[in-house]
């Protein structure tokens, strides 16, 4: 069972699409190129087209027909089935309406006993709660139908509110173990934690398209300098790797890292930078430097020393 196997490769997949287009009819060079450009890598045109045309891969005749009689399809491999079986045992699977009966006799590739996420927050969503599942499914359906939703929820202080939004997509955080609905059409309500939703239903409100704003995450930038002691370079680069970022070496032991982040995540980023201690320093912008300084000044007044 190998993951790195040509059976799962881009080339096999692309050629499969080409053959599918050529079964029972001729495929033109243009059609073939369109498929390659869509499904393969950016330089694949240089390989796949000549290999088929020069008959090194004897799957297309000179006239653009194929000796293959049926649209290509391969059964699922054991690896694919075992991964699906593992997924079918995951606690979040009940959110989806999906039938896994065909995997009855299959051994899972892994179970929840085989791995442990040690730094996930403990107040994640209750994915097995019937109301939560109902809301999740309703929201997912509304996203697909692009149907406005009227959502009743509790806020952080525990009071109730009701908002009408256009659901855009669901965002999952592995760290928080929570889903959020990213919405538009309501400038006061762009992100809704699913765990706070009491109920949701299709709204008859006609939310004007002009009210839809996709600018839910105004991007900001912070610049850090890292000194490579205590393996900081490796730790910081990996830690911040999920952001769009750019690193430059300044001298033998010092590096500059620019991180693009969403304004909504600023507080979180402040404490993540603090976690590196004195080996990481914020240099720009001044406003971010002040956020760090404020925390440190507050610490000075805590009487720790």
């Amino acid at each position, binding site marked *: 069972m190998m*993951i*790195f*196997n*040509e*059976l*799962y*490769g*881009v*080339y*096999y997949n692309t050629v499969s699409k080409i053959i599918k287009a050529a079964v029972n009819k001729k495929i033109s060079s243009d059609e073939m190129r369109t498929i390659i450009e869509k499904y393969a890598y950016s*330089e694949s045109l*240089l390989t796949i087209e000549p290999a088929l045309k020069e*008959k*090194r*891969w*004897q799957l297309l*005749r000179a006239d653009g027909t194929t000796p*293959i009689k049926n649209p*290509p399809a391969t*059964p*699922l491999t*054991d*690896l*694919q*089935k075992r991964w699906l079986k*593992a*997924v079918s045992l995951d606690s979040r699977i009940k959110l989806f309406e*999906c039938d896994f009966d065909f995997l009855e006799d299959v051994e899972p590739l*892994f179970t929840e006993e*085989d791995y*442990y*996420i*040690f730094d996930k927050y403990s*107040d994640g969503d209750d994915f097995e709660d019937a109301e939560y599942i109902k809301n999740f499914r309703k929201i997912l359906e509304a996203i*697909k139908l692009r149907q406005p939703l009227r959502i009743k929820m509790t806020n952080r202080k525990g009071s109730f509110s009701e908002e009408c939004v256009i659901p855009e997509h*669901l*965002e*999952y*955080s*592995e760290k928080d173990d929570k889903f959020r609905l990213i919405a538009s059409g309501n400038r006061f309500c762009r992100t809704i934690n699913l765990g706070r939703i009491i109920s949701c239903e299709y709204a008859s409100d006609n939310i004007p398209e002009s009210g839809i704003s996709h600018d839910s*995450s105004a991007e900001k930038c912070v610049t850090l300098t890292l000194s490579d002691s205590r393996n900081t*370079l490796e730790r910081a*680069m*990996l830690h911040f*790797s*999920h952001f*769009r970022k750019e*690193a430059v*070496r300044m001298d033998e032991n010092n*590096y500059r890292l620019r991180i693009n982040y969403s304004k909504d995540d600023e507080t979180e980023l402040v404490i993540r930078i603090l*976690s590196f*201690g*004195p080996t990481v*320093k914020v240099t720009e912008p001044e406003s971010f430097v002040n956020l760090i*300084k404020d925390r*440190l000044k*507050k*610490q000075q007044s805590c009487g*720790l*020393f």
Partner: protein
Amino acid sequence: MAYNELIKNFERIRSYMREFYVYGFKSREEYTVKSTRSYDDERRRVESWLGDCMSFHRTPDGKNMFISIDSRVSRHNPLYKALKSKSFTDGDITLHFIIFDILLPNGEAKTLHEITDSIDKNYLSSFSAPRFYDESTVRKKLAEYVKEGIIKTEKKGKTVFYRRAEDTELNCPDVLDFYSEAAPCGVIGSFLLDRTEEHEDHFAFKHHYITQALDSEILCSLFSAMHNKNEVEISNLNRKSEAPVTIRLVPLNIFISVQNGRQYLLGYIRSNRRIRSFRLDYILKVKELGAADDFDTLREKLTGMHKHIWGVSTQGGSERTEHVEFTVHYDPGEEFIYKRLVREKRCGTVEKLDENSCRFTAEVYDSNEMIPWIRTFIGRITDISFSNKEAELRFKNDIRNMYDLYDLNEE
């Protein structure tokens, strides 16, 4: 050898991609592990696979390539593309599509001779210079597919018959969109997505460490070994030595961090009777060995140790633990600080001292592992105590050094 977009071995490109993605500041000359020609080829491949995600900056030392991806925006992990680049021969791909056209769904099983004959007569004869596949080549390919589970065999007398495995499909793209990013070995979900019809996906991911994709093969091998309760031999790099070291161990669990992007194997080493952690991105190879009869007992032992493990450090499973406690203060209306401590406490405990302060305590194998987390409460820590006095001193000195760093020396 002429440049080929596809590769036979994933290991070399794995390290290049990690360098481009995680670091991204090295110049061409610094990639000294292989020749500069090798660097040029690998860079060209990654550019071809990842297109828009590749950028470069010019420095006096030359052009430095890097991969920059906002994983919150990118709905599917672009690094999966690298795992779809396995090379093959001209004969392999031709044979693949013909075999599955001969062995149809619900079609009758066929002998090796019938398949080989059909390849010749029904498929290749229409080419002016047809390829020739002898029975041995076809048998080998069929055997490969039997191993992957996509072809089944049955024996009638002495004759082996081949038939296509049952066609099943998961008709639920939402599940694949979600789990291809959220489940271990998610790249397999991406392989399954490649088989589905085009559809719009509706999930985005925050705090999403996509670099783990590069370790999928290693992770998959370890899952397989744990499932079979087998020992393994790993070829492992460490920061102290250039050359990989071979270690025999019983793989017990995979510890995954969703806050720093690392994955670890926790395994028992018989030779020194210790449970140790190994970073997956430092493991180059996994070889499955024979059965570990005490697998269940060892795993139970590790589970019992969870109450003292903050991150992955086990101190080998010794009895010795270190005590850590600290107090934080919060203002009225900042009750969320208490809640934050409670949700992030892992194996520790949190106790409310009064309306505006609470205390965290833990008994851990390695208090050094906790320090980065404790620093996230800077601004609120009124008291701190470690039984490991060296760690406590380091923590306090670091705070003083941070004051210096930002010119906040106390007068």
